[in-house]
């Protein structure tokens, strides 16, 4: 008796039929996040911003195409800069977020966003940014309030020292990679993404452009005492220690869950 294949799937080309039943994926047994098998390429061609690393399920993003910084609050700083929507440069679409340092150094410009608490699994935080002369650091923090404690993670590119750094379990910035001279140009958006495991409070991996950095068994910081309302808070910031008025751009902030456990 001849074997009857369920689907006639070409070796490559158009991919799987689009009437495949959607299935729950990863750590979320029932919920709003389902897969659409083999539709990722189509999504990208339709204008998705999720092109750097498609692993994980996108649960929130901001591409700043609303032309407003209305999903964020401004970081408080003694010499705060300004974050405004900008049509001067964009990684995708028409707008990005323009970070402008203040006229007094040191200056810090940042925005933070509150998000619902994710399922305790592997979550990712991706952002794209430009660099400019005089910009010392771009920092990306992820703070999980679980109802009892704060689980704090962060990575940053330190342009002043050409290092990629992360926040360790004691809250200190620790080098993850050194000698990292990534090119700073007004229209060149670099992309960084780091994944953490909320079950173990450890980092999993960090990606910066073409580079992958394993971070298995590296613990994040746990700060005891936190609001009883679980939530997720992320921050993107640009900091300059000595130069005033530095401008750089950020775009395509993406949060994911159900990330795979691979360390690279």
């Amino acid at each position: 008796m001849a074997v009857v294949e369920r689907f006639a799937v070409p070796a490559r080309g158009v991919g799987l039929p689009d009437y495949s039943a959607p299935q729950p994926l990863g750590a979320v047994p029932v919920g709003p996040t389902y897969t659409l098998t083999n539709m990722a390429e189509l999504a990208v061609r339709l204008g998705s911003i999720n092109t750097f690393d498609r692993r994980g399920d996108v649960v929130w993003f901001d591409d700043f195409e609303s032309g407003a910084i209305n999903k964020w609050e401004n970081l408080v700083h003694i010499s705060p800069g300004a974050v405004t929507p900008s049509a001067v440069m964009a990684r995708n679409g028409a707008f990005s977020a323009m970070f402008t340092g203040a006229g007094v150094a040191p200056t810090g410009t940042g925005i933070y966003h509150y998000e619902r608490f994710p399922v305790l699994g592997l979550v990712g935080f991706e952002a794209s940014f430009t660099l400019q002369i005089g910009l010392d650091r771009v920092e990306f923090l992820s703070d999980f309030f679980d109802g009892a404690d704060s689980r704090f993670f962060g990575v940053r590119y330190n342009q002043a020292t050409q290092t990629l750094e992360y926040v360790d379990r004691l809250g200190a910035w620790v080098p993850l990679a050194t000698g990292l001279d990534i090119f700073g140009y007004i229209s060149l958006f670099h992309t960084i993404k780091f994944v953490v495991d909320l079950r173990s409070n450890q980092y999993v991996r960090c990606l910066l452009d073409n580079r992958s950095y394993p971070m298995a068994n590296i613990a994040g910081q746990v700060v005891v005492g936190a609001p009883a309302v679980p939530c997720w808070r992320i921050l993107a910031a640009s900091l300059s220690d000595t130069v005033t008025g530095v401008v750089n751009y950020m775009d395509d902030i993406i949060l994911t869950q159900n990330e795979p456990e691979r360390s690279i």
Partner: protein
Amino acid sequence: MAFLAWGFDPTTSVYHSAYVDSNNLVHVLDPNTPTSEKEADKPNTGETDGGTTLGS
């Protein structure tokens, strides 16, 4: 329960944040600071860091 602003102190390179609980107590959270050096909870004196400068 309410969050106050998240701030950064350039003199110490430390992020600060705080929230007010249901008893109107201000709790200071200092991620990016060694836990042993974290500020203790303190009563709400009516003055908060919400929207003001830090590290001044």
